[in-house]
């Protein structure tokens, strides 16, 4: 079982995230980055599948030099090897271009049975790359899995929707995106941290993938951010201490604002 986990290096969601004023792209320089929290669940799920049977987990990322940290974390958790696609021309790529680069990298890795991703990144939060990637690779996709089992050549997931809980199957090779409900990602052990230092990480450029630089980056994006603006801070309203009448005061506020 050859599994590729796609991961993203993102600005820390706990930090003050912002944009580059020069080109309206996400500021990835002045905010500390890390492996997107939602991708840890994808790494964990891939490791569990391989540990229960056999195979290999390759962790794949597209990003600048600092994105090597995301691969390192996944290798420390237990992934076998890494692939880092890094090329200055990729800066400013939209989801469409990112999915193209990921698809070509997965083709180059070759002989992949399962592609696992998180449900969305914690920076862009669009959640569309998994479907775009599946479309480009011609793979069936089973998404938002809160449970995954792989038996023989069939992947089965459980998806908890608003109206129903569904069981969905797909024949391998397939792509699966997982939610934060599927498992509890492990912390890297000391042994894992030491072992990760010796694990191979391939460095690929666009040329290595046969992707024309004109197909990616900010200028090739199919959407354009025209402007951005910080949301004005909310001004704090009235705070009352409950002295036995807090509920009445709350009801009075809601009535005055015509919510009742």
């Amino acid at each position, binding site marked *: 079982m050859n599994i590729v986990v796609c991961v993203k290096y993102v600005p820390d969601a706990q930090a003050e995230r*912002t944009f580059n004023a020069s080109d309206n792209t996400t500021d990835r320089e002045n905010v500390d980055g890390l492996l997107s929290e939602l991708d840890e669940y994808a790494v964990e799920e891939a490791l569990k599948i391989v540990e229960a049977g056999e195979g290999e987990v390759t962790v794949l990322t597209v990003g600048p030099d600092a994105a090597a940290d995301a691969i390192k974390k996944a290798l420390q958790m237990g992934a076998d090897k890494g692939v880092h696609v890094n090329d200055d021309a990729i800066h400013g790529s939209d989801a*469409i271009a990112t999915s193209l680069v990921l698809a070509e990298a997965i083709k180059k890795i070759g002989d992949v049975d399962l592609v696992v991703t998180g449900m969305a990144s914690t920076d862009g939060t669009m*959640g569309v790359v998994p479907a775009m990637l599946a479309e480009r690779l011609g793979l069936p996709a089973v998404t938002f899995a809160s449970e995954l089992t792989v038996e023989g050549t069939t992947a089965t997931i459980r998806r908890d929707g*608003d109206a129903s809980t569904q069981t969905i199957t797909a024949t391998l090779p397939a792509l699966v995106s997982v939610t934060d409900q599927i498992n509890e990602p492990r912390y890297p052990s000391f042994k894992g941290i030491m072992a990760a230092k010796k694990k191979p990480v391939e460095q690929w450029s666009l040329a290595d993938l046969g992707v024309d630089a004109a197909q990616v980056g900010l200028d090739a994006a*199919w959407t354009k951010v025209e402007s951005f603006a910080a949301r004005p801070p909310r001004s704090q309203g009235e705070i009352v201490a409950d002295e036995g009448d807090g509920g009445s005061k709350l009801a009075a506020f*809601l009535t005055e604002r015509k*919510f*009742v």
Partner: protein
Amino acid sequence: MAEVLVLVDHVEGKVRKTTSELLTIARRLGEPSAVFVGPGFDAAKETLARFGAEKIYRVESPEVLEHLVVPQAELLAQLVSSTSPAAVLVPSSPEGKEIAARLAVKTESGLITDAVDVQATGDGSGGVATTQSVFAGSYTVSATVTKGTPIVAVKPNSATPEEVAGAAADEVVDFTPSDAAKGAKITESKPKQATGRPELTEAAIVVSGGRGTGGDFSKVEDFADSLGAAVGASRAAVDAGWYPHTSQVGQTGKQVSPQLYVACGISGAIQHRAGMQTSKTIVAVNKDNEAPIFELVDFGVVGDLFNVLPQATEAITAAKD
């Protein structure tokens, strides 16, 4: 005027409010054409006409729905090719975004998700300008689509539905999903028990409970019901197993933007704020007067929710009688 395709979100013909919002937005961009997939067309037709659908393209084949999103993406790609629409609008739900993602690749078109407003660019280009709320609601971004047919996934509550009679001329589309579209299949679907409350992302009022409930959501639910509100939960409450994940409000759950949001026993960590801080009016009840949620509120009560909520529920219920 060019058509604007709107993918109808419905359950067995019962059209969801998001669709009437999309039809209203579509009228700003061109002539609304609804795309209806699945059973229940007769029930849906009246609603679609009432909110201005001039045309309705429909496919009733059950196999389109049992294979999830790919057949719907193929159907929309076929319609984009045959009608050259000004834009395609879909609900910004997980399913809608997945359909939009595949459609964008198939039609080589730019995609914008999670739009909270969509307008014509007004420069005569026929383009669309969108507004999104990003980085946990701390920034607002204006964007345009620069390639292909603009595909926009629009969040609930992004427009006030306007009733304008449409011709609703329906046309059965000759469509067969490809074999490749059948790679994934729903083998079982267990409906959830209906709560009778509004859907979280569509509700005008949301009342959420967190760690402060200690696992007892009864007072939160009673208060929500007095207001006709949806019930949400913080990640802490969901992780503790007190409330289902589908009710989680926050970065890794639902992002809501109701007229009124009431946070009960929720401290207001960034994870939670990401899901609710674009709400119009925010109210909090929390025992800790230093809880960060109070920085956001229009009105706050420092107190025990088990005392405050029942008193408020009683006052609201009495006011209604």
